[in-house]
């Protein structure tokens, strides 16, 4: 049977059920879709904004009642168009794509930077049943960029926030705080998602502290199904082999991870 003619790959038109403002630049859009409702934390969907663009977005919630959501920062033309969508309007979705996070038990550290926080929240919600302890660390530039604090707080008792300007929580970088935690406690897994430099730092910290590591990476995605090669990082395709990679996998692409990515035309550009 053909592996790619699937319900997951089929473009579905979904109605926006709810729009929630998370911060001055971030909104969550909720929709109902059978395939997305069965997604794993860390998987993403290709979201079609008719007439504008199609963009990869991590699922920010996956609910057993059949509703899912994406949480979108307004950063460009496509996200701006998406932000103008109201309840009742439609977008297209295909997916969920990618591997998602591998769930583990024990002591878990979750580190999210900026809007990289998004896939980590459904992850934390799934880990609650498995883990003995979760420390959730959030790094943002400033207070206004923070979102999901309430939602995370309801499932994770230990939430630590850093802002670069000190306007909320501790002043500094989230990686500095993570380092302090790692020096005092041992963890069975570190999950990270955020700017690539931050993930590289977390990867190096995890390595130094002999802690298993997973990070969700981002590249320019076109097909989403692993055939066009636009999102390649070394031997891996972000869309199909990722977006979540283990520390061992990232070790194999050290000559690329955190150093450069490929632009829309395939040329390399440094971080």
């Amino acid at each position, binding site marked *: 049977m053909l592996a*790619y003619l*699937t319900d997951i790959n089929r*473009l579905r038109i979904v109605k926006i059920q709810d729009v929630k403002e998370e911060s001055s630049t971030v909104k969550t859009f909720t929709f109902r879709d059978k395939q997305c409702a069965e997604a794993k934390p860390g998987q993403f969907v290709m979201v079609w904004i008719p007439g504008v663009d199609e963009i990869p977005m991590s699922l920010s919630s996956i609910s057993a009642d059949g509703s899912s959501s994406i949480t979108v920062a307004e950063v460009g033309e496509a996200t701006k168009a998406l932000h103008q969508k109201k309840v009742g309007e*439609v977008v*297209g979705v295909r997916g969920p794509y990618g591997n998602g996070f591998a769930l583990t038990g024990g002591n878990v550290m979750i580190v999210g930077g900026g809007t990289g926080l998004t896939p980590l929240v459904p992850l934390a919600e799934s880990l609650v049943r498995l883990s003995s302890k979760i420390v959730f660390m959030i790094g943002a530039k400033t207070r206004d960029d923070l979102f999901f604090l309430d939602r995370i707080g309801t499932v994770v008792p230990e939430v630590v926030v850093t802002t670069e300007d000190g306007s909320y929580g501790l002043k500094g970088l989230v990686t500095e705080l993570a380092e302090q935690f790692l020096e005092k406690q041992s963890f069975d897994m570190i999950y990270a998602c955020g700017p690539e430099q931050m993930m590289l730092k977390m990867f190096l910290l995890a390595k130094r502290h002999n802690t298993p590591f997973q990070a969700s990476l981002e590249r320019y995605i076109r097909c989403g199904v692993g055939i*066009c090669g636009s999102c*390649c990082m070394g*031997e891996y395709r972000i869309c199909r082999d990722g977006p979540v990679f283990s520390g061992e996998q990232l070790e194999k692409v050290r000559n690329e991870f955190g150093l450069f990515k490929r632009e829309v*035309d395939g040329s390399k550009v440094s971080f």
Partner: protein
Amino acid sequence: MSNRLVTEIAGLKLANPTMLAAGILGMSGASLKRVAEAGAGAVITKSMGLKSRVGYSNPTLVQVDCGLLNAMGLPNPSVHHFSEEISEAKKEGVPVIISVYGFSSKDFGEAAKVAAEMDADALELNVSCPHVERTGSEIGQSPQLVAEVVEKVKSTVNKPVFVKLTPNVVDITEIAEAAAKAGADAITVINTVRAMAIDVETTRPVLANKVGGLSGPAIKPIALRCVYEVYRKVKIPVVGCGGVTTWNL
């Protein structure tokens, strides 16, 4: 491994007769190397031109009932920035073929010249992309233009030259014959079939470029018919391409 599948085509020795088609996973050396490691007899790169192109906006791909429809728009960093990728791709030891495109025979000649200076084993001329204006199938639908492009490239480079043809023509054999007569070393048939998808709920074409190329099961019988017709008319090797999903279907 037994040698039963060893194939020689246009002077290239392949461990088996499978080749990675142009456009698929061909933008980076590491990606091509992975496909080679997975067992491909040869790999063909994404089509490279003289200048970089960002291609079309998304959606660039959509699944339809009988396959996939795509219009990437020939994104590429330009052939000038590809030599590092070719060196990486070559590490696996399987033949690496660089696909090139141009907007004129002069372009094709220049792109082929740059590509030939790299460590590639052969070139493939993309005269069949179905969705970029003034290149691809707009050249590949004319026997005269195809002959001109092939002659230009053959007089410029000393590498085997494959010519990939479009099925979107009345008679593919006259194009194949023109390519062969102009000095092509092999013919690849077919590129994708020009097609479109419209979403009924939003009443819009799905692809950003509106029109794209259909691949997948629906086009296999078209590809086979083209291979058959071309094989009967030209003496040079014919590479079958399009809709192949398993070894025996």
